[in-house]
């Protein structure tokens, strides 16, 4: 087929363009093939059929349309000469399966866009008369309606040919009419209103749905079609429902569409756990009579949005959907879709109301063949249709195989059908009512007849291993026999002092032999022990003693005076009184049952008082019985006792060795200061098993543990990050097994456990694993239905290990220990934790539902802290939040922009569906505009010689670092015939080879050269590291300062810098500068100069330590101008290197280990990565790629270069930089906000809190606030309070939100530019990190918004939103008055 006449190129419609782009991105994948097979069961005139098809190709323009690129813009044109003869293949010998396979394969053939985009063939499939017409068309030129049109035309043409009336066949309208129509629509006056509507609409969307917890990580296009036939009866019921007055809409089809999309929304909500959802739906766009007859791609996909809530019914959702579809139909206008709109959904509902008829009276069955690929942006495409008008609706799910594995692909129709049936059965029921899946089998119940009390186990060890060592404490050892004797003596002593079985006995002790004796003696006596850690403040101790109605408290000399309760009998164990009298007496243990209470542990409560959790012997037995076999090893256990006794995690270490014949080594806490027992445990290296928290582990990360004897490590108490686990696994030898044990105090120590596997556990946290014997874990939704795997829900626990409830808190007990709906008579405990089950069936912990938090392993209620803060008389109201600095994205989850390589861990990075970052996308918008900034080398020369008469010796200073860029500049300037002085800052870390380069170059080029230095360089580095988390900022500023000084002295008018084009965009050419279409380059130059003046005013070590007085004079900036060489020259890397090699003898330094000539550079990168989570080079390098000066691979290689940590630490020591103990990223801090008459000194509040609460519950920050911000529901808006950063908290001024339009506008702009979540109108711009670049951006944005020209420096003059806002208002008022 050739093009015989002149070609008329036509543009692509919006929908075509997006498919064309999609196909270009996936060039060898048939993701847009729309293939059908039409099985015609009867006599067919094959010749006429082929003739009809040739006519069809002649008459339908899209079948002759091909695509090409003209000046890299895609265009389409129609071939005039297009003969196509349909082949008939004889398949009569093949069986059904072979034929189907052949069709499937054929449907996957890739189309060449420059040739006609269809493929068709007629198969004769039977000796009898039976044919399959195969027609495959690229989506670019067709859609579902179009397919039915083509089928109908083919049939009609066949008829006409048969009748000999081909000449009467009416003209088929041309698709080009629609192309014109669509283009006109964009010019329509409504288009602005429509664009605006969609923009606003999409603003409410938060997160793209992740069904069953999965997403399409690798943008894979593989997809499988799953068929769900609804059957005649269900279809009928749906249609009946659709007739109801309160259900129906304009037409039956619209109503059915509403019912299906309502069901799909509810299904998605149930399998994602997400509320804000969007579903795309194609709008047919065939509004006119002719368009209804035109084959071609008309559809355009727009989203329908809904926000579902747990109290929704099907009807409430449908009501909203009816409005939504109404709105959708109003605003889904031809040509109005945008990439942004297309990105807003990943699920599509395609309701097709077209259908095929029989072929000329011959029975026909159609089949839509799936090419096994689909647009990777759409993880679910749900097609609903009844193509052959059979009265049975079929739902087809095209499921992305990266998101849905084989098992899930079968679950989707099953779950969807349950949701849909819920609608048919009762439209007024809750959307959570239909149960999607049955309850997991309860893990096997263990025989309770096996019950042994802890004491029975212990006594068995005394009998079997009397002389084995049971306890070690410093240099003392105690055998099981020794221990038992002492326990008996104490028990007798206690009994003499009135202890009875079932009494509650508080143990207010250090970790000591006495503590272990007390625990065992109390249990032997049939009583209950209450461990109280020695660091609990007296008030709280007193509360526990009273609340528990303890009969007596066992304590020691040091702690006794803290006890103020007179009524309680207090036994001091320090003086050994209990051993003296009862040397040889044996105590006979009181037998206990499973129901008897073993211990009570007090945990943080929401009321400001701790609550006592009641643990029975049966529950304790269940845990220990499981633990002793699960953790069993060949050797006996040697555990350290080194964690707080008031913490239920410590139960494991306390009992496990003693009941198994192992050894317990006691590490006493320090009386003052932090508990460093862990260090002792590790240093002594005597234990082979240890139980601790992830926070403990963070302390030993990086230490060398190769020789540690620890083989069993049980981690519990808080979320355990995989990175940490991996680090620990690597630090220890291979023998170490790490277990993650989950369990609230209320379910006895641990009830879900996993063994860490570093190859398998790569998600950000180590999964908590599987429930232990005797316990079951359930993940339920608000209606107590089990949620599908991957979906988060509330974690409930049930089984033998459950606590009996809370002491004296029957109401709370009832709300937390609820009836188990799956097992009558059983209870289940609502943990308040969110969890889900991963694809391996393991439970994953996802955080807290409520106010309870875990801080360094301690569980605490924020309301507990608030209640205690409120006790201070100066405070009216409070809100305490846990401030968690942004978590670094684990390295294996970082993705890089597909164009520039910008990593996703760079702050606020956003990627589109093609993996292109927001910076690249934005830059495309002003790239051309930005070209205006660049000039030619000729212009450069003119500028540099313009001052010749005035400068005695030199035309310019050339900054020479010794790198390739600056060397090239120097040589070029000399080439231009200029008189140049070369300047190098010797910062003390230039590599030897780089220095050799410099010396060789200046000699070879015969140019004068000076090294600048300053004695303060190291201080400047340290300051730069603190301020900017890198070394370069400090270094650059020093170079600018020193070179300006020299230029002034020597009357040199210009300093030429070697900044790359990428660096221009990184540091000064912000997007905002190019917003004005008629931008004048002079305005940009002025703004940049203004910014440079401000730059030198910024407070830092350079300003403090160097003589910067020259910058106080405006004249300095006139006398010495900075010229960026690469603004005038755009040399490629290749050209540059060639030039350098030939002309200058430049050699790439190899002694820095990196692509730099500075040895301290990697220290900066190390610190930046640690504090900010990403390399400081990732952003500037991305610009180099965008400028075409680096390739994406080169930058990725450089960003990911390995850092020599040893060398980094050495340089840190050398320059005197103190590394912070934990990166900013890992910090967790409690912040107490309060209102009151006036601000109270933080030291006073801290003192007050320490009297009430243990140290770990005392907030690190106290912040006075005029009013607590509230949410729409009138609750304290904690998310606002959580979003202040630490420098904002450090500010003296109270937090006040913006007020009025102007303050709000300025606040929005500050937040965007400074990347703040929240800003107080009294926050200081500079303290928040606002430097000159930020000033350019903020000012430009403000000027753009209110169409003013405020100068740059005003932001430093009025550095708060409140002041700046007032300034704006004043200016505007003045202007207004002048105008009047």
């Amino acid at each position, binding site marked *: 087929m050739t093009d015989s006449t002149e070609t008329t190129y036509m543009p692509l419609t919006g929908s075509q363009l997006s498919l064309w782009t999609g196909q270009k991105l996936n060039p060898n994948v048939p993701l847009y093939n729309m293939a059908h097979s039409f099985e015609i069961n009867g006599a067919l005139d094959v010749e006429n059929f082929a003739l009809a098809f040739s006519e069809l190709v002649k008459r339908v323009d899209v079948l002759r349309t091909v695509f090409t690129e003209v000046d890299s813009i895609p265009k389409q044109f129609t071939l005039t000469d297009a003969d196509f003869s349909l082949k008939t293949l004889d398949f009569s010998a093949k069986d059904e399966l072979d034929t189907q396979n052949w069709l499937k394969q054929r449907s996957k053939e890739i189309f060449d866009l420059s040739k006609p985009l269809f493929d068709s063939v007629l198969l004769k499939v039977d000796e009898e008369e039976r044919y399959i017409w195969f027609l495959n068309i690229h989506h670019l030129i067709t859609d579902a309606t179009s397919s039915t049109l083509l089928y109908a035309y083919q049939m009609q043409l066949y008829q006409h040919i048969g009748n000999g009336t081909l000449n009467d066949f009416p003209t088929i309208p041309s698709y080009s009419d629609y192309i014109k*129509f669509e283009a006109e629509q964009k010019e329509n006056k409504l288009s602005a209103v429509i664009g605006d509507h969609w923009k606003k609409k999409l603003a409410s969307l938060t997160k793209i749905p992740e069904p069953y917890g999965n997403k399409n990580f690798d943008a894979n296009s593989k997809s499988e079609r799953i068929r769900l036939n609804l059957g005649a009866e269900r279809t009928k019921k749906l249609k009946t429902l659709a007739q109801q007055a309160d259900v129906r809409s*304009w037409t039956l089809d619209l109503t059915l569409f509403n019912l299906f999309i309502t069901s799909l929304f509810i299904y998605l909500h149930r399998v994602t756990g997400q509320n804000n959802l969007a579903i795309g739906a194609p709008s*047919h766009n065939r*509004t*006119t009579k*002719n*368009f209804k007859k035109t084959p071609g791609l008309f559809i355009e996909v727009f989203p329908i949005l809904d926000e579902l809530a747990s109290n929704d019914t099907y009807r409430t959702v449908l009501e909203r959907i*009816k409005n939504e579809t*109404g709105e959708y*139909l109003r605003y889904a206008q031809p040509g109005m879709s945008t990439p942004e709109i297309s990105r807003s959904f990943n699920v599509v509902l395609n309701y097709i109301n077209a259908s095929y008829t029989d072929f000329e009276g011959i029975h026909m069955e159609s089949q839509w063949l799936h090419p096994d690929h689909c647009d990777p942006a759409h993880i679910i495409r749900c097609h609903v249709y009844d193509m052959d008008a059979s009265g049975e609706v079929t739902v087809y799910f095209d499921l992305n195989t990266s998101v849905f594995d084989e098992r899930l692909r079968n679950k989707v129709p099953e779950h969807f059908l349950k949701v849909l049936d819920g609608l048919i059965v009762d439209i007024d029921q809750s959307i959570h009512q239909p149960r999607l899946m049955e309850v997991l089998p309860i893990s096997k119940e263990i025989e309770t007849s096996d019950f042994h009390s802890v004491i029975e186990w212990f006594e068995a060890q005394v009998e079997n291993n009397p002389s084995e060592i049971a306890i070690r404490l410093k240099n003392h050892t105690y055998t099981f026999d020794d221990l038992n004797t002492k326990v008996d003596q104490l028990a007798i002593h206690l009994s003499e002092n009135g202890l009875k079985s079932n009494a509650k006995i508080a143990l207010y002790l250090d970790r000591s032999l006495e503590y272990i004796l007390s625990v065992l003696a109390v249990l032997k006596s049939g009583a209950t022990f209450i461990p109280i850690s020695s660091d609990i403040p007296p008030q709280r101790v007193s509360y526990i003693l009273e609340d528990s109605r303890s009969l007596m408290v066992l304590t020691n000399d040091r702690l006794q005076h803290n006890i103020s309760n007179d009524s309680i009998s207090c036994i001091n164990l320090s003086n050994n009184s209990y051993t003296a009298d009862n040397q040889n007496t044996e105590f006979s243990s009181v037998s206990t049952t499973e129901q008897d209470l073993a211990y009570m542990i007090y945990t943080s409560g929401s009321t400001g008082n701790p609550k006592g959790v009641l643990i029975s012997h049966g529950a304790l037995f269940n845990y220990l019985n499981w633990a002793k076999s699960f953790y069993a090893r060949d050797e006996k256990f040697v555990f350290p006792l080194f964690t707080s006794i008031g913490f239920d995690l410590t139960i494991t270490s306390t009992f496990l060795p003693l009941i198994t014949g192992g050894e317990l080594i006691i590490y006493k806490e320090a009386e003052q200061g932090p508990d460093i027992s862990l260090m002792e445990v590790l240093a002594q290296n005597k234990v082979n098993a240890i139980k601790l928290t992830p926070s403990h582990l963070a302390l030993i990360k990086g230490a060398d543990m190769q020789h540690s004897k620890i083989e069993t490590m049980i981690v519990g108490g808080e979320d355990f990050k995989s990175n940490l686990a991996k680090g620990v696994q690597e630090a220890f030898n291979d023998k170490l097994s790490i277990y993650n044990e989950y369990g609230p105090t209320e379910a006895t120590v641990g009830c879900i456990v996993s063994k860490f596997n570093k190859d398998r556990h790569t998600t950000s946290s180590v999964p908590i694993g599987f429930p232990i014997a005797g316990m079951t874990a359930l993940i339920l939704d608000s209606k107590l239905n089990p949620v599908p795997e991957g979906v988060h829900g509330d974690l409930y626990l049930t089984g033998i290990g459950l606590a009996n409830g809370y002491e004296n808190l029957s109401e709370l007990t009832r709300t937390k220990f609820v009836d188990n709906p799956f097992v009558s008579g059983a209870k289940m405990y609502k943990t308040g934790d969110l969890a889900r089950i991963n694809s391996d069936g393991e439970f994953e912990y996802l955080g807290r539902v409520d106010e309870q938090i875990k801080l360094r392993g301690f569980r605490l209620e924020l309301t507990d802290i608030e209640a205690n803060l409120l006790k201070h008389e100066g405070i009216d109201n409070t809100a305490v939040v846990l401030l968690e600095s942004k978590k670094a994205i684990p390295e294996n989850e970082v993705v890089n922009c597909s164009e520039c390589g910008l990593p996703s861990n760079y702050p606020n990075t956003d990627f589109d569906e093609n993996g292109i970052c927001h910076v690249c996308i934005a830059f495309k918008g002003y790239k051309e505009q930005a070209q205006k900034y660049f000039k030619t080398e000729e212009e450069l020369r003119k500028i540099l010689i313009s001052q010749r008469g005035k400068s005695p010796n030199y035309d310019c200073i050339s900054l020479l670092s010794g790198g390739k860029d600056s060397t090239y500049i120097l040589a070029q300037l000399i080439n231009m015939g200029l008189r140049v002085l070369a300047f190098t800052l010797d910062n003390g870390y230039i590599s030897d080879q780089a220095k050799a380069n410099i010396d060789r170059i200046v000699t070879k080029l015969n140019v004068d050269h000076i090294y600048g230095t300053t004695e303060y360089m190291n201080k400047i580095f340290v300051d730069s590291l603190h301020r900017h988390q890198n070394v370069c900022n400090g270094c650059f500023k020093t170079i600018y300062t020193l070179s300006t000084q020299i230029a002034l002295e020597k009357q040199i008018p210009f300093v030429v810098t070697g900044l790359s084009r990428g660096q221009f965009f990184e540091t000064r050419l912000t997007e905002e500068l190019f917003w004005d279409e008629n931008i004048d380059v002079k305005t940009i130059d002025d703004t940049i100069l203004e910014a440079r003046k401000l730059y030198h005013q910024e407070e830092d070590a350079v300003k403090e330590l160097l003589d910067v007085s020259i910058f106080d004079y405006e004249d300095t900036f006139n006398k010495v101008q900075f010229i960026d060489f690469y603004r005038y020259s755009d040399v490629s890397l290749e050209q540059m290197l060639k030039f350098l090699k030939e002309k200058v003898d430049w050699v790439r330094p190899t002694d820095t280990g990196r692509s730099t000539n500075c040895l301290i550079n990697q220290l900066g990168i190390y610190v930046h990565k640690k504090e900010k989570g990403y390399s400081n080079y990732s952003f500037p390098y991305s610009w180099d790629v965008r400028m075409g000066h680096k390739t994406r691979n080169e930058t990725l290689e450089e960003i990911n270069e390995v850092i020599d940590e040893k060398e980094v630490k050495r340089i840190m020591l050398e320059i005197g930089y103190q590394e912070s103990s934990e990166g900013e990223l890992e910090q967790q801090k409690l912040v107490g906000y309060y209102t009151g008459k006036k601000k109270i000194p933080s030291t006073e509040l801290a003192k007050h809190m320490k009297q009430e609460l243990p140290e770990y519950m005392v907030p690190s920050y106290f912040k006075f606030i005029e009013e607590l911000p509230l949410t729409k529901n009138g609750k304290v808006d904690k998310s606002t309070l959580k979003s202040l950063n630490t420098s904002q908290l450090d500010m003296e001024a109270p937090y006040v939100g913006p007020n009025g339009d102007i303050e709000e506008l300025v606040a929005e702009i500050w937040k965007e530019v400074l990347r703040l979540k929240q800003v107080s109108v009294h926050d200081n711009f500079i303290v928040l990190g606002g430097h000159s670049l930020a000033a350019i951006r903020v000012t430009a944005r403000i000027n753009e918004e209110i169409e003013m020209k405020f100068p740059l420096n005003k932001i430093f003059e009025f550095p708060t939103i409140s002041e700046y806002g007032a300034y704006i208002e004043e200016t505007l008022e003045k202007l207004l008055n002048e105008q009047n």
Partner: protein
Amino acid sequence: MNELLIKYIQEQLLNNEMEEELEAQDDLLGDGILDSLGMMKLILYIELEFDTKVPPQDMVIENFMTVQHISDYLAQKKK
């Protein structure tokens, strides 16, 4: 009012492809002149052109069957 609506339907929604003039009494949905997409576009036009809002409960066939119905509905709404 009728003329304005007829003009919009004919020119903007139907691209002047009607074989006969659209009458104020023609059944818009029933005669297949408009489908629900066309109907909602007509409502958007009405809302913008006559600066009014058509609430969901008013979007019933009784108000929108013909151009005449729509005019009546809008007139009654104005009161």
